[in-house]
């Protein structure tokens, strides 16, 4: 969309997940916006090509209320159904199958939550569900802990992307453990997409500088004072962090080094 993004296309290879290629390294959630217009404005500003959706009951008493598909242009954005709210592998598998049955995609953002207060993942249940869903032919993008061993097992299970958290969902605490994220990225071949916890643009920028392949966020944009403006900030920050990672930062020095010549001074 921006000249910069076009330049990016020249400077960076696309993000490839399950054989599909994307220019944007930002994936957006569609929850918690004050209205659909703001949601669409934010998604557009962010440049995201993939958006997540949740599977829920139709409200039979207000059938006028349309589902989110009524608002999302499916030519423009790829849907990524999630299993948010599932606390067992069995539930997550059921929601994944319902999401696939809608007929748009066999991709699933797999969440198996282990604790209501923190929404932190249950690694045991997650691995069980991932193995089953991969066997059923799903393309699984797995929301997980910043846990290297779990990440390696998810990759071995055949998931299409591993999505470790930066900090708890909706917390906005940012990247609490860059070391673990760097470690996970250094050991995996499938894309590593940091999911949850990013709170502000510098969090996104620093996260991309760890070398990860992308970021998935929702609350940081939806709960900003101006979501559309923050979405643009996040687009810029994600591109900046990626470019900075590719450009190769200067070495840190505890010693200062002048930027101006030390010779040619006057007497």
């Amino acid at each position: 969309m921006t000249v910069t993004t076009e330049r990016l296309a020249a400077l960076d290879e696309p993000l490839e997940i399950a054989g599909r290629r994307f220019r944007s390294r930002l994936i957006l959630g569609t929850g918690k916006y004050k209205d659909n217009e703001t949601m669409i404005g934010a998604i557009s500003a962010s440049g995201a090509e993939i958006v997540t959706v949740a599977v829920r009951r139709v409200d039979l008493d207000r059938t006028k209320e349309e589902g989110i598909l009524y608002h999302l242009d499916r030519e423009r954005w790829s849907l990524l159904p999630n299993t948010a709210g599932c606390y067992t592998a069995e539930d997550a598998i059921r929601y994944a199958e319902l999401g696939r049955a809608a007929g748009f995609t066999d991709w699933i953002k797999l969440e198996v939550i282990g604790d209501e207060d923190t929404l932190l993942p249950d690694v045991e249940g997650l691995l069980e569900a991932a193995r089953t869903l991969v066997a059923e032919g799903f393309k699984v993008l797995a929301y997980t802990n910043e846990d290297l061993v779990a990440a390696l097992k998810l990759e071995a299970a055949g998931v299409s992307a591993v999505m470790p958290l930066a900090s708890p969902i909706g917390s906005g605490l940012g990247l609490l453990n860059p070391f673990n994220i760097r470690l996970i990225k250094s050991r995996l071949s499938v894309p590593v997409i940091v999911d949850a916890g990013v709170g502000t643009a510098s969090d996104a920028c620093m996260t991309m500088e760890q070398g990860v392949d992308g970021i998935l966020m929702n609350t940081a944009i939806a709960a900003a004072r101006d979501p559309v403006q923050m979405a643009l900030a996040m687009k810029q920050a994600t591109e900046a962090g990626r470019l900075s990672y590719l450009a190769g930062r200067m070495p840190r020095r505890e010693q200062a080094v002048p930027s101006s010549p030390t010779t040619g001074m006057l007497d």
Partner: protein
Amino acid sequence: MNDTIQETITVTLNGEERQVPGGLTVSDLLAHLNLHDRSVVVERNREIIRRDEYAEVAIDAGDTIELVHFVGGG
């Protein structure tokens, strides 16, 4: 939906007991609920019904039906 008189049956719809006319197919039910033009996924007694079966699969008394769709989520 045939036009002969029908008695109503009780099914569990999205967690609530509801009276619906007897002898409905899934298609009939969606029409009955004004959801026929909506992309809704139907689960009957914990089994997902494929779209192309909507016209055949009948709704029986006591069925547990879940009608789901996509909503905003992260």
